[in-house]
């Protein structure tokens, strides 16, 4: 299972990459494998303000729709048009082209409350 060392993780299987006060968010390799073939992604409205753990996007497989939660509080500032056009990026490149949205985080230190790679890897093993 691929768990990149430079990311932070939520217990609900989102990853977060922090660059200044901008956080890129997606779902983990483990999550995409559990969800199976992703056929639809519903992204949040640009400018929406979310709290940590708010349902913010929806990822749908053939069988089920799953909520994706904001790992930290912030404002939605960018969406990934590539996954809207081709949702299978979530399966094939979950940490790259399969990212979902970017947040301008309210408090960058919040990311430290998330799991690091070792802790997340342990939680799914």
């Amino acid at each position, binding site marked *: 299972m691929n768990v990149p060392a430079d990311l932070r993780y939520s217990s609900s299987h989102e990853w977060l990459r922090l660059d200044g006060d901008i956080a890129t968010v997606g779902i983990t390799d483990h999550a995409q494998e559990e969800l*199976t*073939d992703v*056929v*639809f992604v*519903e992204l949040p409205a640009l400018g929406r303000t979310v709290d940590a753990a708010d349902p913010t996007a*929806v990822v*749908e*497989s*053939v*069988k089920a*729709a799953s909520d994706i939660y904001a790992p930290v509080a912030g404002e939605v500032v960018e969406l990934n048009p590539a996954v809207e056009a081709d949702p299978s990026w979530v399966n094939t490149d979950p940490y790259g082209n399969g990212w979902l949205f970017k947040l301008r985080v309210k408090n960058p230190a919040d990311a430290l409350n998330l799991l690091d790679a070792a802790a997340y890897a342990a939680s799914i093993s």
Partner: protein
Amino acid sequence: MTPELQHSPLEAAHQALAARLVPFAGWNMPVQYTSILNEHHAVRNAAGIFDISHMGQFLVSGPGCATWLNRLLTNNIDKLAPGQGQYTLMLNEQGGVIDDLIAYRSGEAEFFLVVNASMIEEDFFWLAGHQDPDIILRNESALWAGMAIQGPRASAIFASACPGETLPPRNGYATTTAGAIVCRTGYTGEDGFEFFCPAAEGIAAWDSFVAAGAAPCGLGARDTLRLEMGYPLNGNDLSPERSPIEAGLGFFVDLTKPDFIGRDTLLRQKSEGPTVKLSAIQYTDKGAPPRAHYPVLAEDGSPLGELTSGVLSPSLMTGIAMAYLPTAFSKPGTPLQIDVRGRLFPAIVVKKPFYKAG
């Protein structure tokens, strides 16, 4: 309800293939092996194999069993010669669907019935409750392993895995020299057959079909394939409150038979016209996959009902669904909207099937 999950005689084969097993109709069954989309396309383009051991098998025999079954089922069983099968329905006194099933005439005075897994007990009690002293009714569900081999390569796979045996014609029933039952039926819209053998021989049969090129497929692909054909699933699209006339299955109802349970209601609906019809609905644009219980609205936003089934069609890559709609809204071309978590997606009523082979 039995709280214990039941286990297919093929379960060890699924585990060896690292299938994802989930509870379905009281059974621990594979929902997928690799990917629902890949398995779906394998059946449309080559061949797949499904475990259908959870389905029920009844053997009905005795003099007069055809006449007896004709009073309990909607289709005309007298049309079957030995070695032929037909899709048919079992109704309650109000004309609602208890179950849909396939009845095969396995002998002059013997029928092999294949019923839905979730309905085995209820169907058997219903039949037993109407039993006639001359009729022998046996629930053989625990004796048989069942598998469906489906797809354009199915007959080649049969020839390879069962040398010297002959596939029956479409809807036909045959037995092999080893005592297995082969039925030229399925639930995918593709050519194929259903194979029943003693439970202990199931894994060897499964392995031989897989070795001959059938891709293991789970219940996930079974559902997308059947829905693309507009085939109903009992419990979703069929219910004790809906008749086969409302479900658009009038072709499988012979109202000229002198009597069968539910006939009065069906005759009335046929003459007056049903107030609702199970309708095929397709998105007109991209959208979030439709799913059972999502609300269906008219073009002007007035509520019409809810979806009974829905999925993103892997063959058409668009949303397809079914719903009981007021008759005035059930004509092909009628514009509708599907409410997915508060977002409305445009759709129209279409003719079944959604997908046509080739």
